[in-house]
């Protein structure tokens, strides 16, 4: 199993870089994961990351992109509920990339 090292702690990740244990996540880990993806997290990223974590807590799954898009529009405002906005924040896919940074498994139905 691959590991990443954050703050002196080794954290297990799967072959695609997703955290194996949800509870290993912290903001520090998120920043580290973002860095390896070439992203610097700002407030707009955190909005989505926090939203994803809340969604996961409520439903035990990471939402598929179209579900995320719809829900983000409803919760964060219509101007944020479109894939252009989300792809600008997370160029490798708001589902896959944002979920990875949020410490969630890859979304089911993310194709």
């Amino acid at each position, binding site marked *: 199993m691959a590991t990443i090292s954050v703050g002196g702690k080794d954290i297990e990740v799967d072959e695609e870089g997703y955290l194996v244990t949800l509870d290993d996540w912290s903001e520090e880990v998120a920043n580290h994961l973002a860095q390896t993806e070439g992203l610097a997290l700002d407030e707009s990223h955190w909005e989505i990351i926090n939203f994803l974590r809340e969604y996961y807590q*409520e*439903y*035990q*799954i990471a*939402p*598929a992109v*179209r*579900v995320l898009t*719809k*829900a983000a529009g*409803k919760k964060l405002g219509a101007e944020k509920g479109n894939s252009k906005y989300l792809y600008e924040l997370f160029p490798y896919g708001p589902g896959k990339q944002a979920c990875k940074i949020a410490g969630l498994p890859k979304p*089911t*139905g993310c*194709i």
Partner: protein
Amino acid sequence: MSEGTIKKFLYLNRKAPYGTIYALESLEVVLIGAAFDQDVSLAFVDDGVFQLTKNQNTKGIEMKGFSLVYNALGDYGITKLYVEKESLEERGLTLDDLQDVVYEDENDDYAEKKSILLVSRAEMGQMMETQNVVLSF
């Protein structure tokens, strides 16, 4: 996918949620299939009705619980969860033992509506007759 080829898909769930992989696999297929914008319904008969029960606790069997996922189905456009009345009764269950699964109706100002439809065995049979594809788990 081109428009105009929407088929009616029914996912038929007959097994208890844990102990076999059927219930979880069914749910995963449902979520993946939802991306294709078909007319999807789920049916719960026999021990399958246990999949929707409230307060599931999987700690003792060291499995990840997935019962809350049913509440997310509405976000995926899946709003018809048929539950067979006789199957509930045979197991000493009522609708009160099941989760209150709801969806938001976009065409009705996001009003919350119930996804669970209680039907008799005969009605279940009739509903199945109207489907184009039935996938049994």
